[in-house]
């Protein structure tokens, strides 16, 4: 399953499928990006980050891809599990002085068993 930008806030997938959550960031000068997962009733939790000198970074079952040309970030979750159900946020940060994170709208991922 795949979400398209910030205009599709909900993504429903079947357990075991791969999920792709997309994010269009706003500032071409941003040089640090983070994906957060927020489960119901909890605070956002760090998943994976990437700096602008990279275009891909892999973690455990998650991969972040960065396309600076079109200011696009995606989070790929392999073999999605019911425990992955949450709202996912991307955050971008500008360099220089104090980093002020700007969060995207968020995408709700629903994983059906």
């Amino acid at each position, binding site marked *: 399953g795949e979400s398209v930008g910030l205009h599709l806030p909900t993504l429903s997938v079947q357990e075991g499928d791969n999920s792709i959550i997309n994010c269009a960031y706003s500032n071409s000068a941003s040089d640090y990006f*983070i994906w957060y997962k927020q489960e119901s009733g909890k605070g956002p*939790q760090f998943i994976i980050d990437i700096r602008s000198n990279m275009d891909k970074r892999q973690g455990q079952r998650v991969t972040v891809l960065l396309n600076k040309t079109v200011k696009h970030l995606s989070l790929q979750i392999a073999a999605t599990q019911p425990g992955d159900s949450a709202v996912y946020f991307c955050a971008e940060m500008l360099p220089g002085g104090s980093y*002020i994170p700007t*969060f995207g709208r*968020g995408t709700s991922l629903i994983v059906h068993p």
Partner: protein
Amino acid sequence: DTAVSQTPKYLVTQMGNDKSIKCEQNLGHDTMYWYKQDSKKFLKIMFSYNNKELIINETVPNRFSPKSPDKAHLNLHINSLELGDSAVYFCASSPDQGGETQYFGPGTRLLVL
């Protein structure tokens, strides 16, 4: 041994009242933040403190006043509460102010009646 803790978890109060939300982190981080998350899950930074000094103050009404007695604590005091203040408020911390990931507390759900 919670990393970032907030109290209270829930806060229901009348319009016009003054209330405080407390935040503590035991991670030894230098920087702490307050965020507001509205009903549409939009997450926006309000304040940032580094070693007890204010470094970020986004466009927030002056009814909101952060106070940092030491670098492990950042409390949020709100005067003359309004209906529009109803939201979830998250405290977060990071090792420093330079592009590090942030660790979020569980949130305080504020409802103004």
